[in-house]
């Protein structure tokens, strides 16, 4: 173990990826640029009801679980896979259609919060009943590949020490009180992040024994990170960009 420690210490090459490397990997989402006849097969194939063909073809990235079942269903093969945006600051910014195509995400959190927390973000992960997929990825955020510690992000043990509640899961009824308690226990300024589809909208669990549609109905959310689950590099990048870094 001593040997490995010292070798690691001295080795100049680390597996950690640069921000550019992390940013180069895309998470693809289904999207129709045109040529949709509104047959609705894709909408009925969607397990989480993310697609609406009512007025125009729209997809709610906050509901999409990225299963791509819709792609094969389209008789016109009009559904393409396009890069999805990293994050959104408002829930409605996650709905895309021909009139509002997905582009790179922009915008940062409000100025005072960024100024207060920008360089050092203590994260308290709050699982409100997720499937454990997001937890796997949150744990990966601190492995040597993503190494979020180098950006000043760290997981802390108590909400008292936290600046950010990283909320996963659809907010089950049984977790509602605990989530409110955690929010209450966190000193301000604080940021609430909805990570993953079920935190944003309830996702595939919407309509189950959960409280409302996602975390936003219980806590005010400042940052939405779509994905089911969002890969670790996307979560890290989304947090960094929302704080105006890179």
């Amino acid at each position: 173990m001593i040997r490995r420690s010292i070798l690691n210490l001295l080795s100049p090459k680390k597996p950690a990826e640069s921000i550019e490397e992390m940013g180069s990997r895309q998470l693809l989402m289904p999207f129709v640029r045109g040529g949709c006849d509104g047959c609705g097969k894709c909408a009925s194939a969607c397990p989480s009801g993310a697609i609406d063909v009512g007025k125009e073809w729209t997809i709610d990235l906050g509901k999409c679980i990225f299963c791509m079942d819709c792609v094969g269903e389209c008789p016109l093969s009009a559904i393409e896979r396009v890069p999805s945006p990293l994050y959104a600051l408002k829930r409605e910014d996650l709905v895309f259609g021909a009139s509002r195509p997905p582009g790179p995400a922009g915008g940062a959190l409000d100025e005072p919060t960024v100024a207060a927390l920008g360089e050092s973000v203590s994260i308290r992960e709050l699982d409100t009943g997720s499937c454990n997929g997001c937890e796997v990825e949150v744990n990966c955020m601190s492995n040597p590949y993503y190494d979020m510690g180098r950006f000043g992000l760290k997981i802390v043990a108590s909400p008292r020490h936290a600046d950010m509640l990283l909320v996963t899961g659809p907010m089950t009824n049984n977790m509602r009180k605990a989530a409110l308690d955690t929010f209450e226990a966190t000193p301000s300024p604080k940021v609430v992040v909805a990570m993953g589809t079920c935190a944003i909208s309830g996702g595939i669990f919407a309509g189950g024994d959960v409280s409302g549609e996602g975390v936003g109905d219980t806590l005010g959310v400042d940052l939405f990170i779509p994905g089911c689950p969002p890969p670790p590099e996307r979560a890290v990048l989304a947090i960094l960009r929302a704080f105006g870094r890179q």
Partner: protein
Amino acid sequence: MNPFEIVLMALQAAALMAVSPLVVGIIRKIKARMQNKVGASVLQPYRDLRKMFRKESAVSENASFLFRLIPYVCLTSMLLLAAMTPFVYTQVIAPYADVIAMVYIFTMFRFAMVLGGLEGGSAFGGMGSSREVMMSVLIEPALLISIMTLSAMTGAGFDLSAISGSINARGAAAICPALLLAGTSFVITMVAENTRVPFDNPDTHLELTMVHEGMLLEYSGRGLAIMEFASMVRLTIFMALLGTLFFPWGTAMAMTAAELSVSLLAITVKMLAIAFGIALLESTVAKMRVFRMPNMLTASFALALMAMVSLYVL
């Protein structure tokens, strides 16, 4: 003591406190690199402290005035200790740098922390306090005796300036079985007192295993910043004591530019070496079981006693 010397002593205390987040940052950086990570910048602790200092405090509704006062008591005790610790210059605020008072100020720090852990009335704070108390019963006497050994070895009384002056003046000749034994005991004490691996895990996310962190669970904002800072200063003080008292080379004994610059270089090298040692220990050893700790601490205690006895027997 001329005024210039007093200024120098004050500067040395201020410098010790100022570099303590850097010291912690360096240890964390080394640890991260050993884990094959890049790790946070060595300046990250400063950023963390600044952020916490600006945050709101969420205080438990069961906490009393003590809870609000304790961070300041802890910081004060560290301030006093910083002024008593030889760092780049062997002279410290003599004649008030009394080694016995030093140990009692450490006790004051612990006592305040333990009471702070009991504030709020959660099970975790009590758990941290309870374990801290168990450790302190064995740590403090060992610390007392290992420092006393130095006092007896140098015959310099209780004045830390005189002790460190005497040891540094002797240089390599100061190295004797007593110094080595006391030094070993001091290293164990340092690791335990600062609740580091293998006694406690400073990076733990498990509330059930915490010692030091458990007592801090209820603090937030400014109070937390101060408590964290005080802990950083405590670690730096121990490292500085280890560097100047048990590795007696290079510390300035006179106030000349040459000696001071050599001393600055020497203490930098020593602190880096100790930081590396701590990081290596923390990387290669697992946290021990709670009830194995007493064995380790008793060993430290026995080493300190042997050091003392060896002074006269050998």
